[in-house]
Structures are given as C-alpha cells and as structure tokens.
C-alpha cells in the first residue's frame, strides 16, 4: 500500500536532524521572540529560529510538508495546507473537509506514520505527552502551541508570526472582521434588544450549554457581541468555564431567546429526539417563536481560523432564514 522510500529519504532526514540539532545548539544563546528571523549558517537552505512552547526551534523558512496535530484551521487561514492531520480533525471536521481531502490521517498520532510522511514541520498542541513530543522532535522540527488559551484571531496571528506569514494573518483577520461587520448588519433587525442567544448540545445523558470558544459561541458572544442569558453569563461565561451540564428541569432557566443546538451523536440522537418532544422543550420561548436552530456538530467541532469563518456564515444564515 504505502511506498517506501527509505534509502532516498535518508539524506533529507539527516538534514532535518541537522536542523533539529542546530536548534538545540542555539537554544542556550538567546531569547529571540517568536517570529524573529535568522539565517541558517549551514546547508544553504533558509531556516528561521522561532520560540514555541517547547523552546527555540529551527524551522524551515517556508515549510511545505506540514503535519498539523491541531490548529489545522489556523494554518489554512494562513494559506498553509497540511499534508497530514490528527485523526480527530480528519474524522470530525466537515468544515475543513475540502481543504483536508488530500491530508492523510496520522492517527493520534502514530509516530511511524508521521515519520513516513516526511514532514518538514510538525505543529502540535501542548497537551500531547512529553514523550510523544520528544519522539516527534526526532522526526522533524516540532513546534507546540498552547491549546484553548487563545481565540482564533490570536491563534492565527500567533502562527502567522511564528511561520513568517504576518501578512496572511493580518489579511485573514481583516477579512474575518469585515465578515463580522456584514453579519452584524444582516442580523440587526432580527435579534431585538434584550433578546439573548445561546449554544446548546444534546447528548445521551445531559444537555450542555457551551460558551466561548466552543461550538461557534465565540462568533456569537465575542464577534457579534450578542448577549447570553443571565444565568449562563453569571455561571458559565464570567467564571471562564467553557461549558456546563444542565438537566432538562433547569433548562428553561438557562434557555436563550435564540438557541443554536447540536446533537452529540454517539447514543444521543434518540434521546435528543425524545427531549425535543418533551413539554419542557416545547414550552421554551425559542421553540414557540421558531428560534431554535439545529446545526450539525461536524461543522461546529473546531474553533480554529477557517472553521470559525464558515460557522459565522451558517449562524447568520440560520438567524436570517426565518425572516
């Protein structure tokens, strides 16, 4: 099935190793900020030293074979198409399906698969185990970035600076902000003052209310600046929690006037249907005003760069569809 090109790749691999070793060597020297450009002293090829969460790493100036174990949407926003992505992204992101059609599934991750892909840069989240990161570092220059600490705009800017694509980052952010302005205009007549929006997920056992950044809520609360229901604001948003579990009985207290709802499929579809037949559900103001918007979870799973942009489109479409 898979072509083996061991003998021909040995020199390329050695080169990567050389980069990696030289990155180690230079780490003691100084404290250059992320994105600061340095010319490589050896092998004629362009590299730059960047500061990532895992220290200073020497990466190719223009990486071509990038494996993204997270942050795929951020890299796409910068015009970088990963050649390999983590299983979760590959299997769950309908939003990025098109761009990632050629990207291979590297497992969660399988280091041998990653090695065979011959990446020249690996982008990983900090939550990966130290061991796995140290194995990845032996394959190719690896940069780790904090997970779920920055919002999408910050992430795109972070990677733009790190990978020398500040321009692309600025462009993307500007276009996203423009999109947000347009969206605000479009929905201005639809959400009346005092009306709230909320993001909910139905699973087999519980109802979750999501707050920024999950399930597209970042778009609603941060970008469009729409208000959340009081209790959600007080108990979830303000303390910085990303989600909270609700029971059906307490749902009316947390329900918004406009509700975006996803269904967690594993064992949840039937339960969700039952729940939506219940009298409590049918008594929700959002239900009665036809302001419940069912959206596919596969499109709202990830919150990075390009995903967010497309989620905003869907949200605006749903909000304006009733008019």
């Amino acid at each position: 099935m898979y072509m083996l090109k061991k003998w021909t790749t040995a020199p390329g691999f050695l080169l990567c190793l050389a980069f990696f070793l030289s990155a180690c060597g230079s780490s003691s020297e100084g404290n250059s900020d992320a994105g600061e450009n340095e010319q490589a002293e050896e092998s004629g090829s362009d590299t730059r030293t960047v500061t990532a969460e895992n220290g200073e790493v020497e990466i190719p100036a223009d990486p071509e074979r990038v494996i993204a174990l997270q942050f795929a949407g951020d890299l796409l926003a910068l015009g970088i198409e990963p050649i390999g992505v983590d299983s979760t992204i590959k299997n769950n992101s309908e939003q990025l399906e098109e761009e990632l059609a050629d990207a291979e599934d590297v497992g969660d991750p399988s280091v041998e698969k990653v090695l065979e892909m011959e990446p020249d840069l690996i982008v990983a989240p900090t939550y990966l185990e130290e061991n796995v990161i140290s194995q990845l570092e032996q394959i190719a220059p690896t940069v780790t970035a904090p997970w779920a600490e920055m919002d999408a705009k910050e992430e795109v800017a972070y990677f733009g600076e790190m990978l020398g694509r500040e321009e692309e980052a600025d462009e993307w952010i500007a276009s996203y902000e423009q999109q947000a302005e347009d969206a605000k205009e479009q929905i201005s007549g639809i959400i009346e003052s005092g009306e709230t929006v909320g993001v909910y997920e139905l699973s087999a056992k519980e109802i979750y209310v999501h707050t920024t950044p999950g399930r597209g809520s970042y778009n609603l609360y941060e970008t469009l600046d729409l208000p959340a229901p009081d209790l959600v604001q007080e108990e979830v948003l303000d303390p910085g929690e990303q989600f909270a579990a609700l029971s059906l009985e307490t749902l009316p207290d947390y329900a918004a006037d406009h509700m975006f709802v996803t269904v967690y499929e594993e064992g949840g579809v039937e339960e969700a249907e039952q729940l939506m037949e219940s009298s409590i559900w049918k008594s929700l103001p959002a239900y009665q005003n036809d302001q419940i918007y069912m959206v596919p979870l596969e499109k709202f799973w990830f919150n990075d760069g390009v995903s967010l942009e497309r989620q905003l489109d869907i949200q605006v479409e749903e909000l304006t569809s009733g008019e």
Partner: protein
Amino acid sequence: MKSIVQERLRRKQLFFFAVIILLILAVFFYSMNTGFTSLSPIEVIQTFIGLGDSQSSLILFEFRLPRIVLALLVGACLAVSGCILQGVSRNSLADPGILGITTGAGLFVVVYISYASSFEAASAFTLPFLALIGGSITAFLIYILSYEKNVGLLPYRMILNGIAIAAGISALMTILMLRLAPEQYSFVAIWLAGRISGSTWNEVLSLLPWLVILFIIIMFRARDLDTLAFGDKMATGLGVTVEKERLILTGSAVALAAAGVSVSGGIGFVGLIAPHLARRLVGSQHVMVLPASALLGGLLLLTADTIGRSIIEPSEIPAGVVVAVIGAPYFLYLLARQKA
C-alpha cells in the same frame, strides 16, 4: 522414587521456561518487524548490527524497541504483583486490578489532571509518583478493612473490600471526568484503558530499578510465600513471622503494581492470568512460579500491545483493552471451574 519425581518436575519446569523464553523472543522479533512502516527481518538485523539507515534506526531504537521493552517490564511487574497478592491472600482471584490498586492509582491521576493548573505538567515524573501514592493508599485501606484481630487477614473479605472500594473510586472518577475538557478527557480515558504508546527509554529506565530491586527482595521470600499458603496458624507454627512477612510482601506487590500502572495506565487481567498459567506450567513452588509469572506477564502484554498497535493503523487500540478482551473470557472460565 522421590528423586525421580523431582527430576521429572525439574525437567518439565526447564522445558516450559525454555518454551516461554523462545515465545518471547519470537514475539519480540515479530513486534520489531511490525508497525506502520514495514521493515523486513533483514533490515531489522542490518539495523541492529549498525548497518541500517537512519530512518530505520530511528524507528527501531527510538519508537519500537523502548515500547517492546516497556511492555515486557510492565507485564512482569503486574504479573509478579498478582502472583504475590494471590499467595498472600490465599485467593486465586486476587490481582492488582480487582483489588482496586489500579483504580486507586487512576483516581490520583484524574484528580491531578482535573486540578493541575497547567495540563502540560502531567510529566513522566509526576504521574508515576501520584499513581504510587494512590495505589498505596487504596491497598492500605483494603488491608485494614480485611484484617480481623486474632484471625489475621481474611482473603475473601479482601476481594470484596477491593471490589467495593474500586466501585466507589470509579464513581468518583466518573464525576471528575465529566468536568474535563475533551482533550483532557481523552487523555484520561486512554490512560485508564492502559496504553504503552509513546514510550521512551526514560520510562524504561524509571521502571527497571523498581522491578529489579523488588523482584530480588521477593525472590528471597519465595519460601515464606509457599508457607503462607497453609494459612496463618500453620505458617506461624512453621516459624514464619506472618504479619511482618505479609506486610513486606503486600508492600512489594503494591509498589510493583503501582510502578507498572504509573507508566502504562490501567492494564488489568495480566496480574490475574499470568500467575495462573505459571502455576499450571511449573507447579506451585514460588521460587519457580514467580519468575515464570514475570516472563508470562511480559509475553502477554507484549503480544497484546503488538496486536493493539498493528490492527487498525495508524490508530491504536490500547494494550489494556486487548488484554481485557483476552482476559475476560479466561476470568469467566476460571469462575466457572471454581464452582464445579
């Protein structure tokens, strides 16, 4: 007469040891050849003697070999731990998993991941330590609850207490895990399922001294373990300081289990099956059963991990799950036979 019987037994034991070691070697080489990148046996041998290219040596020496060695070590730890627990509690159903030691270690890991300020800090050094504390506390609790004054340790009570405590701890873990973010949740879930993926030489080096030192201590007490099988009164009559020996042995068993669990997560059943197989093959003397358990445990886990990592590439099935798939039917078979 007697010497002929002994001679036969010894020959049989030697034969089985040789078979087990050969099997380990076979699986070892098979495992070296198996993986996402297929390397032919010739390439493996070339790489071993230093003639392979750098990619092959990276795969073999940094990705596969540490993992294989670790599977052998963890399997040995759990099997020896189970063997001792079965001997001390005079109960053939004892095993670090069933006695709640694994679960106790798991609870501490979950608590740590839930409340640690930064998730990245879950390093190779903090997790083993926490697992050891969690396992020890659970074992201590079970020990106290199962001890009856003047009678000694009650084997059946030990099992029941272990199950009850494990159930309580599992419930606690579920509550904690519901609050975790998806990434943390999947980390914990995989950890609890038991996995040896992403192993490096660091883990091998951190586990090896535990295993060697504890195994030597235990081998010196193999006789006492035989004697304890007769019950506390008889053992006391035979000159064994029962409580002291039992404390040392149980302590070593807990330390071994916790050390194994700390690097591999919740792998059950190895500690149950390996000693049973060992007793069948080499008799009941612990001088023989202990090393045989260690070898069989290593063999079992290595086989399970090799299956787990080659069956749905590039993803993996945690080794603990594969072991459970093999182990559960065996456990049921054991229970059915005990009734009869």
